[in-house]
């Protein structure tokens, strides 16, 4: 059958990010997915013809969680029969109607629907959602290690249940009975409460105590956000009112942004990494979602209520019977631009503790709130690296676990805005405070301030050899405003967009002061940029650059945004280098170190398939010998140029 295993085993510690398979499996599962196991053995659990009494008879000897699917004679609907704990009242046996609407399958009262029955069952093997606990496959099916074994089980059909093959060995323990089976509550929000049996791949060590049983999370599950609400069993429901205010206000941007999305998809073939918006397309009205959100949030109905938010803030009848995901789908209708919709979907998932992703993100946030403190951190870069690692892993997890449908999946993959929103937004204040303290502690902010002060007295030409027009005071004021906005944004992408706007202002000033049609390369731009940054006198800018460089995905850093971010970084290095050696050594030791760290980190992140050694990394030290100028042309010097490390003893 499939060669490619659908999921892998957990490798909790030190698994390089970027491994596509972050999903977790119990160790007894070899390389056969739950879905495949279900598909192969459906003659065992899918017993459409049996009646309720037979199902009860079969299941009574089975451990809690065991299930069958049969068809109800009266309603002709499929029914999921689940064995509960022995002491459950009124019976140890409960049936759940499976709804089939528009060729999707969902459990009655559940918010999520699936393209087929197997996927539905596979999902409920992982997540209990509206069930009292997740489903359990028979031990023999779980433990089968080959397709052959599964086929022989399958071959027995219903006979399997009474055969010796159906051994009922000791399990990892009964399903959790710490919580009572759910009453048939009309408020699906309730079903989100209580312990869930998901595993957070990043924090296995913390989690094991909490989660006594490990459950597979099926990679290829497709959870479909249902847009239907016409179930006869659902209480009457009024769709949440679309936010007309918002719609009116945003309509222009909606249009722009969707155009941008189309253009990108077309231009990049949908597969290439996305770069920052092009400088030539930028204008000051570019949408900066991370700055707009404060206002939006007040208008926006709360879509999902996770367990972190136990008291439902809204009790109006219109909201009560509708599950989070249904509300979300209604909000999906049309008013938001695709990117924003995706960001919201992901954000809501991240807050929904009924999803593995939600558990993952919320646990991370909780843990980060504890540790993002100056006294807990050695350096800002380390702090940011930890977050970047999580962003990548969580994104991989989200994509792998298949909570998203393909078009959305692609967007989340290509565009990290959604991830930034659910991870960075809640942490922004704390990160900022901690980074500032750390940079004060290591005196880098002060040193930058001193360097800026030294450079400010000079003319553009003296300063960096600027030979072109530079922005006047009014333009510098505009630049300052952009930079101030930049500091407020949590999204590194938004920050880069603002940075690009700054660069555009600088280009404009250069053009205005030169002949018609002149194009400027880095020879002219870098000096001008350095000059402007000196005029802005914002020592905190290096913290911003650090934030962007560490948190943006490396494919981003290859694009235009990455180029200009690099230019700002280079300018700051230049400014910080000692004036007397600026022509020869260029970079300060701090700059060299941080660059080294950066490259080390990038290597670490990408190391998986890389051949590299630590000695190699340590070779990536920037060093330019002083007195280079004078001897540049001599051949003897060229031999050593430019990475002679020993004299200055750059740290290894």
């Amino acid at each position, binding site marked *: 059958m499939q060669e490619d295993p659908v999921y892998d085993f957990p490798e909790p510690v030190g698994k390089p990010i970027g491994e596509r398979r972050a999903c977790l499996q119990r160790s007894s599962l070899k390389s056969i997915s739950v879905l495949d196991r279900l598909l192969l053995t459906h003659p065992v659990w899918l017993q459409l013809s049996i009646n309720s009494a037979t199902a009860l008879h079969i299941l009574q000897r089975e451990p809690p969680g065991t299930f069958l699917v049969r068809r109800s004679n009266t309603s002709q609907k499929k029914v999921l029969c689940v064995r509960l704990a022995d002491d459950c009242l009124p019976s140890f046996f409960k049936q759940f109607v499976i709804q089939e609407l528009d060729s999707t399958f969902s459990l009655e009262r559940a918010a999520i629907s699936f393209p087929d029955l197997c996927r539905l069952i596979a999902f409920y093997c992982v997540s209990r959602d509206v069930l009292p606990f997740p489903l359990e496959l028979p031990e023999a099916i779980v433990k089968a290690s080959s397709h052959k074994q599964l086929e022989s089980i399958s071959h027995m059909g219903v006979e399997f249940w009474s055969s010796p093959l159906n051994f009922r060995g000791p399990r990892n323990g009964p399903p959790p009975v710490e919580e009572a089976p759910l009453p048939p509550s009309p408020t699906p929000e309730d079903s989100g409460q209580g312990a869930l049996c998901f595993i957070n791949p990043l924090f296995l060590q913390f989690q094991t105590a909490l989660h006594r049983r490990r459950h597979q999370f099926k990679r290829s599950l497709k959870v479909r956000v249902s847009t239907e609400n016409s179930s006869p069993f659902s209480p009457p429901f009024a769709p949440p009112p679309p936010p007309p205010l918002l719609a009116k206000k945003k309509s222009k941007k909606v249009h722009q942004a969707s155009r941008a999305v189309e253009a990108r998809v077309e231009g990049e073939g949908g597969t290439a990494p996305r770069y920052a918006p092009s400088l030539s397309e930028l204008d000051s009205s570019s949408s900066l979602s991370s700055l707009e959100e404060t206002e939006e949030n007040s208008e926006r109905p709360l879509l999902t209520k996770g367990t972190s938010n136990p008291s439902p803030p809204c009790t109006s009848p219109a909201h009560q019977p509708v599950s989070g995901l249904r509300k979300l789908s209604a909000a999906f209708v049309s008013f938001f631009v695709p990117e924003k919709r995706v960001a919201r979907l992901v954000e809501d998932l991240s807050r929904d503790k009924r999803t593995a992703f939600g558990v993952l993100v919320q646990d991370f946030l909780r843990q980060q709130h504890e540790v993002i403190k100056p006294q807990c951190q050695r350096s800002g870069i380390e702090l940011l690296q930890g977050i970047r690692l999580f962003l990548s892993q969580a994104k991989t997890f989200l994509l792998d676990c298949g909570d998203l449908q393909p078009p959305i999946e692609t967007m989340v993959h290509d565009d990290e805005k959604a991830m930034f929103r659910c991870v960075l937004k809640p942490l922004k204040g704390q990160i900022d405070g901690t980074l500032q303290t750390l940079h004060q502690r290591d005196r880098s902010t002060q040193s930058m301030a001193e360097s800026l002060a030294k450079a400010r007295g000079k003319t553009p030409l003296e300063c960096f050899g600027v030979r072109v027009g530079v922005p006047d005071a009014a333009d510098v004021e505009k630049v300052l405003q952009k930079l101030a906005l930049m500091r407020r944004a949590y999204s590194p992408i938004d920050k880069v967009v603002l940075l690009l706007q700054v660069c555009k202002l600088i280009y404009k000033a250069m053009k205005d002061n030169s002949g018609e049609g002149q194009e400027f390369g*880095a020879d002219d731009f870098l000096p001008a940029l350095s000059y402007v940054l000196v005029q802005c006198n914002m020592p905190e800018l290096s913290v911003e650059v650090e934030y962007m460089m560490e948190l943006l995905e490396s494919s981003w850093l290859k694009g235009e945004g990455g180029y200009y971010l690099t230019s700002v970084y280079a300018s700051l290095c230049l400014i910080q280098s000692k004036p007397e050696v600026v022509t020869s050594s260029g970079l300060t030791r701090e700059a060299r170190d941080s660059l080294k760290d950066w490259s080390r980190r990038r290597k670490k992140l990408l190391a998986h398939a890389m051949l590299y050694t630590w000695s190699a990394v340590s070779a990536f030290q920037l060093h330019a010998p002083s007195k280079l100028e004078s001897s540049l042309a001599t051949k003897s010097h060229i031999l050593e140029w430019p990475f002679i490390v020993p004299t200055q003893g750059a740290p290894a």
Partner: protein
Amino acid sequence: FTMAAGGGAGNKTYSFKVVLLGEGCVGKTSLVLRYCENKFNDKHITTLQASFLTKKLNITGKRVNLAIWDTAGQERFHALGPIYYRDSNGAILVYDITDEDSFQKVKNWVKELRKMLGNEICLCIVGNKVDLEKERHVSVEEAEGYAESVGAKHYHTSAKLNKGIEELFLDLCKRMMETAQAEERAKGNGASQSTTSRRGVQIVDDDPQAATAAGGCCSSA
């Protein structure tokens, strides 16, 4: 699905970063402008900035996105080079055939790049301004011999006459694709399916042998 960052997979879009190095006044900006301008001669050009340019290509059925990073060539910015060229797939080192000094600078860059990025980076040494053949100060033999000795390819261009430029970039792209494909294969042998690993972070070999092999011929030039 897989990611097409960096080198990219066989049937995906390749994204390459190419860094442009060379002393001020050798014409690297006009070279790259000429290249990107010719293909994209539309309204964009008025707002286009020459420091960072992109180009989309289709080579033997494979899509290639080229990001061209210009660097400041003045001596005072020399030390900033590594900030720009890290993660590069290719480097274009431009000198002015009428200016011997600019050729020396190219040699410096080559040595530095080999040391920093290893042999994975595709190097192009470009003698620009061949329209000024009469004032040539760098001999063709010397330049081509040097390029060969360091595993680089040499090109003669004139931004003014739009000569040799298309060829230079096309050739570079092909070489970068080959490198990426070779890497892809090597990765495949390693049985690792990590799709996020990207080209661009290379072996930075501090082994003296490698350093000699890469740049030992500098002194002979």
